[in-house]
């Protein structure tokens, strides 16, 4: 089943009066349960594409259809709600809410969704145990290592039971061991929860783990490899 359908996507922006064609006519689809990486050198348009997939940025032209919804047609507040219920985000710098504990960070998304306390508690416990942080639930981000924070971020991204998770360079700040550990966890969750994971990365370890790698160059798809 198609989760994301991208048709003839373009993104042009202006930098110091120069026109930059960050994405040029991309056509892609992502199916449910994929574990895919969008790879390429810096400036190839990975993050721009990811931002448009996440409804954070608008395409200049083309269409992004997520589960039957054209994201770019949604108003700002509708788009925020759409993200809340359909998309999970994992950022390079973890970006947890610093004043909340690991448990509260994960719970927060479900709180925004209006889920009951019982449901929130059960899901939070399940996810934090799944990422190996069942014993650090009450720790604030400042008391966790980078790898642990990123695992909390993964748990948070999955808390809302999204259609897919977008991870922008999730391993960039992690050492090898933490990277391997994080990728194993995400792959396990991908298989168990059937949630699509899409990474923007130039980390070879991520590309190796991904079952599909879309290579971009100058805003275009260079090749699309399915392993």
């Amino acid at each position: 089943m198609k989760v994301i359908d991208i048709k003839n996507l373009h993104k042009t922006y202006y930098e110091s009066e120069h026109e930059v064609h960050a994405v040029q006519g991309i056509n892609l689809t992502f199916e449910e349960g994929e574990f895919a990486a969008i790879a390429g050198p810096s400036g190839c348009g990975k993050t721009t594409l990811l931002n448009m997939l996440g409804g954070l940025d608008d395409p200049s032209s083309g269409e992004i259809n997520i589960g039957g919804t054209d994201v770019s047609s949604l108003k700002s507040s509708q788009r925020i709600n759409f993200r809340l219920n359909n998309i999970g985000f994992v950022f390079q710098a973890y970006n947890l809410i610093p004043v909340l504990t690991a448990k509260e960070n994960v719970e927060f998304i479900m709180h925004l969704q209006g889920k009951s306390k019982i449901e929130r508690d059960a899901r939070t416990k399940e996810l934090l145990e799944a990422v190996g942080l069942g014993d650090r639930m009450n720790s604030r981000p400042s008391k966790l290592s980078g790898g642990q924070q990123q695992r909390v971020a993964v748990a948070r991204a999955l808390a809302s039971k999204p259609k897919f998770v977008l991870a922008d360079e999730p391993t960039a700040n992690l050492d090898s061991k933490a990277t391997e550990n994080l990728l194993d966890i995400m792959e396990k969750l991908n298989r168990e929860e059937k949630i699509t994971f899409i990474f923007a990365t130039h980390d070879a370890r991520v590309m190796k783990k991904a079952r599909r790698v879309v290579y971009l160059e100058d805003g275009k798809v260079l090749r699309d490899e399915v392993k």
Partner: protein
Amino acid sequence: MKEYLKIAWRNIWRNKRRTLITIASVFFALWLALIMRAMQTGSYKHMANGIVEAFTGSIQIHHKGYWNDQTLDNTFEFLPEIATKVESVDNIKSAIPRLESFALASTGEQTKGILVVGIDPVKELDLTHPDRKLVEGEYFSGASSNGVLVSSKLAGFLRLSVGDTLTLLSTGYHGASAAGIFPVIGIVKMPNPELNRRIVFLTLTTAQELYAAYNMLTSLVLNIEDTDQLVKIKKDLTALLDDEIYEIMDWKEMNPELVQQIQSDEYGGYIMLAMLYLIVGFGVLGTLIMMTTERRKEFGVMIAIGMQKKKLGLILSIEMLFMAIVGVAAGVIGSLPVIGYLVNNPIQIQGEGAELFESYGFDPIMPAEFDLTYFISQSVVVLVIFVLATIYPVRSVLKLNEIKALRS
């Protein structure tokens, strides 16, 4: 909501030093403002009381035109039914008759133009309490007492003491000559320095005899229960009395200089407070701008993961509210013991300062007053400053571009 309160409370303590500085600025501003208002309102009340309770009363009834031409020819006859009528009005405890005029007072060595006030020795006790102002001698023994009470500064000027005699010389009713020699039975200290320099009390009967103004009055001074009802009482009296014969004046109309002095001082105080609050307001705004700029990326993340901008704005508003409440509570609590002390121990102005006060006709004393009104108004002003300062960060969040915020 509980979740937002929790996040907001924890957020304000993320940078303890900055939060404490912001709260401290609110505390000191409010603390100063409250003490200043307590001193101001206390002083105004003291000034007004010095005139109102010690002499003019809150409302007076005169013969029409008396106030602009204060001569004995503008007196009115004291008819018992007038007093009965006036005393029937709600909130009026009693109507106190007076005959006031001017005279030359002499002891032989010194002479001075003075104010002569003929009073009902019994009724006057309910309002101006001249007996309590005695510093020497005794009060009138009855309505026909022939003695005089002399204000202390005047007594000093005329070198009078109890048992001496005072000669009064003036013009009486319809041009009759008025002269008399009176024994000084007491010295009174009037709270208003201007009055204390020039007042002599006689019984009403003695004054009427002196001025040949038998059964005539210059004023009926009203002793009222609730000064807040001044306007209503005046309205009721206007409906009751013939405005072709009588004029009804409240203390503000009779003391326009005092009212103007109070108003100009009050405006000066407001300007000071406005400057104080302006400084605090900009300080708070600076803190908020810093706080918002520092957390721009965090806001971007929260919106990206699905938090509505309005809810984020709400969290920021709660943070501001928390700081304002803590600052206001600290300011109010901190000011209470100081105001309480000043209420019970008014500042006594000494030396040249005291002379300056007296030269303006004020008692050289600065009492404070405890009044819930200024506690509420000043706290509301601080809260309004916070609300205004909150507009900036909330507006920034509502207009936030997630992508730019995430890149910051």
